């Protein structure tokens, strides 16, 4: 007999186990169990990576529409000219090395009865469990006059890539004394402090290069993440609250909600009036990525899950993590997507092994820059509630950086933020 292949090896193992009187139900059940992961952002990449790390015997396939990925994290630094877009590019060789089968194709359907995933390229993949990390889509039609095409003139720059570069170019071309209008979306949306970090970094760029220019934030909300920290920094660096503040924030209650745009006139129509921008950055309202909606996972726009396992409440055998999921009270962040991916990977493995699922605390930490040396954070620890209804935030832990800290504290957080970027990229994509 030749050296046994993997399959007969495992069968023999099961026989050996029976002989030895040890119970190994998951090995006996199937030779190789298959997990298909959809989406290669921080959620999907981390899930695939950690499935292999936790259970090397699994057959893990990651299907991602694009050959490489640009992280949204640190993309506001590209917008502000502090970093090149190339520095945000990641490929999938690291995951391949870790034993993940990586497929570049667009998933067009999930058949939860047959347990198969179909792609645009005509491929079909069987699974024992499926993890969906499809990110977000924009509700282009929520704002009259806006569309995917209009985003070529009024970029959202809220999926990193060509949109990020486009916004950067527009800001570079803008004359000094111009106005940058940023339209911030209603909740829930990815990276809750993201629009305000962007406004800050653009104001910092203006201050250094085009000091007569202004930033106007038109907001569909009356409050935002890390607001006190942003306002403290804006007051210090940009004269916020004074007559000639570089940054103006118009909350919903003052008419900041934008309902319509005039793309040719570079004008947005808010309840408070018409705002003409030399550069307009419109971040539209959001929903779960299309495949989550098409597969019946996201009836109300986002995928409802059991917080203990991340299994869909609508479609058994399919787990949803990251931005596409309702993981309340966790925010939609890259760190949250990564933590959820690891917890979901562990849960999937235990379900496949027929073991009870344990729960572990999940971490989120999210940094926001005002300028290259001034940064602050929010951190939280989350645990699934016993009924799996929510990921409850520990009230005795977490929180934001304190107000009124010295520059050394803000500088340390800037260094830790960049360090975080290097670590999370390697940890997710290998």
């Amino acid at each position: 007999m030749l050296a046994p292949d993997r399959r007969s090896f495992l069968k023999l193992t099961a026989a050996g186990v029976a002989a030895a009187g040890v119970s190994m139900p998951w090995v006996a059940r199937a030779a190789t169990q298959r997990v298909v992961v959809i989406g290669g952002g921080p959620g999907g990449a981390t899930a695939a990576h950690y499935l292999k790390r936790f259970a090397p015997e699994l057959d893990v396939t990651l299907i991602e529409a694009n050959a490489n990925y640009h992280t949204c994290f640190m993309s506001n630094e590209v917008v502000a000219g502090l970093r090149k877009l190339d520095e945000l590019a990641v490929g999938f060789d690291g995951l391949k090395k870790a034993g993940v089968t990586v497929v570049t194709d667009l998933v067009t359907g999930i058949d939860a009865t047959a347990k198969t995933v179909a792609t645009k390229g005509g491929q079909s993949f069987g699974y024992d469990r499926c993890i969906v990390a499809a990110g977000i889509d924009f509700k282009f039609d929520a704002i009259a006059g806006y569309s995917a095409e209009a985003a070529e003139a009024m970029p959202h720059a809220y999926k990193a890539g060509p949109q990020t570069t486009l916004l950067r170019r527009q800001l570079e071309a803008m004359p000094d004394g111009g106005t940058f209008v940023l339209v911030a979306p209603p909740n829930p949306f990815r990276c809750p402090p993201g629009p305000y970090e962007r406004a800050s970094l653009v104001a910092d760029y203006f201050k250094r290069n085009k000091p007569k220019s202004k930033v106007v934030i038109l907001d569909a909300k009356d409050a935002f993440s890390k607001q006190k920290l942003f306002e403290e920094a804006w007051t210090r660096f940009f004269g916020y609250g004074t007559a000639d503040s570089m940054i103006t924030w118009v909350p919903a209650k003052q008419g900041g909600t934008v309902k319509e745009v005039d793309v040719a006139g570079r004008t947005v129509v808010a309840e408070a009036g018409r705002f003409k921008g030399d550069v307009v950055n419109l971040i539209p309202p959001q929903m779960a990525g299309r495949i989550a909606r098409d597969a019946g996972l996201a009836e109300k726009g986002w995928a409802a899950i059991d917080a203990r396992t991340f299994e869909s409440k609508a479609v058994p055998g399919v787990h949803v993590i990251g931005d596409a999921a309702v993981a309340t009270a966790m925010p939609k962040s890259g760190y949250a997507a990564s933590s959820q991916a690891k917890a979901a990977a562990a849960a999937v493995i235990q379900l496949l092994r027929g073991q009870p699922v344990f729960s572990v605390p999940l971490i989120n930490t999210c940094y926001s820059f005002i300028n290259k040396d001034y940064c602050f954070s929010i951190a939280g620890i989350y645990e699934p509630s016993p009924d799996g209804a929510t990921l409850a935030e520990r009230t005795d832990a977490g929180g934001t950086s304190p107000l009124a800290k010295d520059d050394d504290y803000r500088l340390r957080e800037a260094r830790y933020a960049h360090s975080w970027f290097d670590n999370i990229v390697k940890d997710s994509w290998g």
Partner: protein
Amino acid sequence: MSTQRTPVSFLAAALLAVGWTSHAALAADLAVEALAAPCAGCHGTDGTSVGLAAPTIAGLPKDYFNEAMFGYKTDTKPATVMGRIAKGYDDKQTEALAAHFAAKPFGRPGGQAIDSARLAKGRELADKYCQKCHENEGRDADGVGVLAGQKLTYMQFSVSDFLAGKREMDKRQKARFEELVKDHGAPAFTDILHYYANVK
């Protein structure tokens, strides 16, 4: 070629191949792995940081890890996010994390901005003032942190906290710090830290 194996040895090989010895141990291993995994976002996969500021936490002695977490929980050790994060872990979880990371190798991926002009002087000063406690070029960590290959930025923050009286020092360390500052001035720490950060 035929290979003759008994079922039992075959089983042992299979169990070794997947790295466990019993059903329960496998579940327990996974539980600890999953508990520790979110730390990697900032501290790197398996606790070896490839970022330039967050410290590597692999290979730290359990006591050192537990004490650090206790310091963060009680706000007695200077921190940015760790004061907020440590409070989310109870003593049992902290101890499991300490044991988990202590068993991982302290990786030294390099990539730090080392000033090679400082290395000789740094080594000389380290031999005189530091190596009694930070033995084996700072690789050993008997009751102290690992310095060899630790992140320069993190060590600079730590030293500045020690010197500013924000972070507690034991008697021995305090005496050495004072002696070094008296003999060579505080900037001499920079030479020492570049030397330790550069140890492979």
